[in-house]
Each structure stands twice: as structure tokens, then as C-alpha cells.
């Protein structure tokens, strides 16, 4: 009888753990590369992430060029490549080189573009 209760409890524990693990994995998958790797850090800076986007837009205009410029910067950030003002760089410095691979970087940049692009938003 005691053994039976033990097995039952053990099974219950394994099941709850499995459920928790599944939930964890799902959350992990749902949080995109962009949310996890970009927003997470930018939240800490008082300048919101969209301001960078408009800076890029101001300088590079088209989707292709903006995306390329962001990627180029992220892969090897430097003061020469930044679109931000000197005062901003002096205060916050240059970010570190990205650890994301090409595919992840593309995904993140695509999502960034889709979030703030002008196309279809003007009224």
C-alpha cells in the first residue's frame, strides 16, 4: 500500500516537473531573438529603441539600406559607423560586438524593421 502511494506521488512529481519544463521551453521559443537580445538591453537605456530606427531611416532611407546598415554596425560597432550623436556615444559608449549569428541577426533586424517601418502607417 505504502509503495503504491509512493509511486503515485513520484509520478505526480515527474508529471508536474515535465509540465513545468514544457512551459519553460514554450516561453523560451516564444520570446524572439529580437525581444531577448535587443529589447532586453535597450530597456536599460533612457533612449527608446525606436529612436535609433528613425535615425537609420533619416540616413539610409530604404528598407534594404537600413537593414544593411544596422547589420553592418551590429557585426562590428564603431564610432565611425554609428548614426547616433556624439553626445549620446560619449554618455553611453559603443555597444559590444553581437554574439548572434547571421541568421539570428537577420531575424532580429527584420522584426525591428517590421515594428517601426513607415510603410502602411501614414494616414
Amino acid at each position, binding site marked *: 500500500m505504502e509503495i503504491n502511494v509512493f509511486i503515485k506521488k513520484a509520478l505526480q512529481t515527474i508529471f508536474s516537473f515535465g509540465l513545468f519544463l514544457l512551459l519553460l521551453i514554450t516561453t523560451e521559443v516564444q520570446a524572439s531573438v529580437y525581444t531577448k537580445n535587443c529589447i532586453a538591453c535597450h530597456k536599460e537605456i533612457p533612449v527608446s529603441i*525606436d529612436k535609433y530606427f*528613425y535615425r537609420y*531611416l*533619416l*540616413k*539610409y*532611407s*530604404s*528598407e*534594404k*539600406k*537600413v537593414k544593411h546598415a544596422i547589420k553592418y554596425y551590429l557585426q562590428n560597432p564603431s564610432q565611425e559607423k554609428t548614426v547616433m550623436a556624439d553626445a549620446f556615444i560619449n554618455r553611453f559608449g559603443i555597444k559590444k560586438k553581437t554574439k548572434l549569428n547571421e541568421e539570428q541577426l537577420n531575424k532580429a533586424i527584420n522584426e525591428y524593421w517590421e515594428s517601426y517601418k*513607415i*510603410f502602411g*502607417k*501614414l*494616414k
Partner: protein
Amino acid sequence: MLALKNSVIDLHHSEKKTLIGFFSLYITLCIVILIFISFVYYKFQKDLMLSEKRINLQNYSNEFIIRLKQLHINFDKSQVYPRDTRFKSAIYDSDKQLIFSTLKSSHVQLDNIVYTSNKTIHFIKEPESYYLGARYVILEIEDDLEWFSKIEQEILIFTSIGLIFMLFIGYWLLQLFIKPMRDAMHLLDRFIKDTTHELNTPISAIVANVEMIDTSNLDEKLARKIKRIDIGAKTVSNIYQDLTYLTLNHQIMSQNEYLDVGQILHQRVEYFTTLANVKHIAFKMNIKEDVILFIDVKKLSKLIDNLISNAIKYNKINGSIQITLSEKNFTIEDSGKGIKKEQLDLLYERYSRFDKSVGGFGIGLNIVSMICKEYNLNIHISSEISIGTKVDVSWK
């Protein structure tokens, strides 16, 4: 076989041909030049109009770009595209992708600065900074086309005046160019007219007197001489009549009557017998009786005379002339040297002669053609070298 033209070839025919040829060339050239000048003027006026509009559009675009800048800065708060009652606008990114547009026409030429299209004027401005990603800002204003109707009117008036002026110059040039040709033609015509006039009396005297001589009472030698004089006089008389016909043709009224063509043919053959005998040419007659034609007797005789005269002139010694009359046509066929195909076309040209070895002025067939034209007779000449020439005159 060649269907010959019935057209009257008058003295001014070549003159007219040259005149028409020169004038069409000249007019075409003038029109091309005027079109070119009009086009240049149109382009110039259009550019002038556009540069005037451009000043306004430049100001509009500066204002518009300031509003774009404000929208760019505050895009998180407002997404309302700046509009203006004075103009319509659109923005394109550097890949020429449309970002937003209020334009009437969707087709824009981003490589131009200012241009007209479909009753609108477009002005393209590239701002220094690409607010909202706009590399190209296009402003559009309505084109009232007032400038166009003004230019159109101006061009129409000036080209008309220009064309009239050019026409006068052309006419003057033409007169200058054809003067030598006209002089030569007039000289020839005048010469023939004068000669004709002067020949009248002596020829009449010779012909009348030769006819009056009774050759039966003369000795054979003298009779032969008289016969030669008769032939010569008849030849000269024939040429004289041809020339009279040509020079006075338009002044002679036709006295048409119903004539027996067969009878006339016999008469004319008889008239030419002496001439034909010299070359030992035999006439073969195949005449249908009672073929009636409503025609002037002199003109029919002239027509037949010329054809028979040619048949004798271009025949060989001991040749023959076959004359056939049917209900609706008659043919005169010789056994002469024939005419080359390429020369058949030119037969009716006045003063054209293909065989300089025989006498003549080259006016015979010209007269034939004029008579045929007057009486709606169809004339066909077919010829084979060394076999002979066949002239067929038919009517309906």
C-alpha cells in the same frame, strides 16, 4: 502588248512634271524645317513655363519638407501625412519604393526635376535628410495647359505665315529654274508655228499644181519625175497638216458626222499608194463593210494617215501592210523592224523618234493619241523586233 495612256501630252507636260516634282520636294523640306523650328520653340517655351512654376514649387517643397521633418520627429505621436490644398505630394525611398502618395497620377519620373505629365506638373526634390525615409519628395500641381494653347496658337500662326512665305520663295525659285527649259520649248513651238504659217501657200500651190498635171500625155521619164514631185509634195503636205493640227488643235471645232470607216481607209490607202510603191510595199486589205463611226472626217483621216505613214516609213523594202477593219476595231500591221519594249512607253511623247534614219518630227503618234483621247478610242501598240508593229484602234 501595252495599254497606252490616253493623256494629252501638251507642250507644258514636262514643265508640269518638273514643277510638281520640285514643288513637292520643296514643300516637304519646308514642312520638315518648320516642324523642327516649331518643336524647338515649343521645347523652349515649355522650359520657360516650367522654370517659372519651379520657383513656386521650390517654396512649396521647402515648407513641405519642414512638415515632414516635424512628422519624423513626432512619428510615435502622430502618423498623419502632411497635406496642402495648393499641391499634392508623394514620398519615395531611395529604392524608389512608394512610401505614401496623394498624387493623381501614379506614374512618376524620379530622375527628372520638373516635368509635365497628364495635365499635371511634377516637381522632384531630394531633401538633405531622408525624413520618414523619403529620399524623393514629389509635388504635383494642376496644369491648366494655358501655356500650351498659347504656344499652339503662336506656332500655328507663325508656321502658316512661314509656309506662305516659303511658298512664294519656292514659286519664284521655280520660275527661275524652269525659265531656260520654258524658253527652249517656246522657241521650238514658235519655230514650228512660224514654219507652218510660212509653208501654207507654197505647199498648197505645189500640191494643187501637181494634181492638175495630166501625166498620161507626158513621156515616161517626165511622168516619173512628176510622180516623185507628187510623193515629195504629199510628204511635205502630210507633215504640214500634222503641224497645223498640233498648233491649231485647240482652235478647231470638230465637225462630227457618221462616217463609213472602211471607205475612209480605202481613200487613205489610195492616197499613200504612190508613197508605198517607192518601197514596193503591198497593202493587204481586209475591210468589213458598213462600219460606222461618229467622228470628224479630218481627224479620222489624220489618225489613219499617221498610222499608215508610220507603217510605210518604218517598213522594209518589199514589205507589206495589213489593214483589217472589224465591227469594233481596225488594225494596221506592218512588216518592219519593230520597236523595243522599253521604247513603247515613250511612243506618244512629242518629238520622240526612235529611228533617226527615216524622216519625221516625232509628232505623228502624239496627234494619234490626242484624237483617240477626244473620241474615247482605245489604242494598243504591240511590236516584235524584226517581225513588225501592230497598231490596234478599238471603240465601244
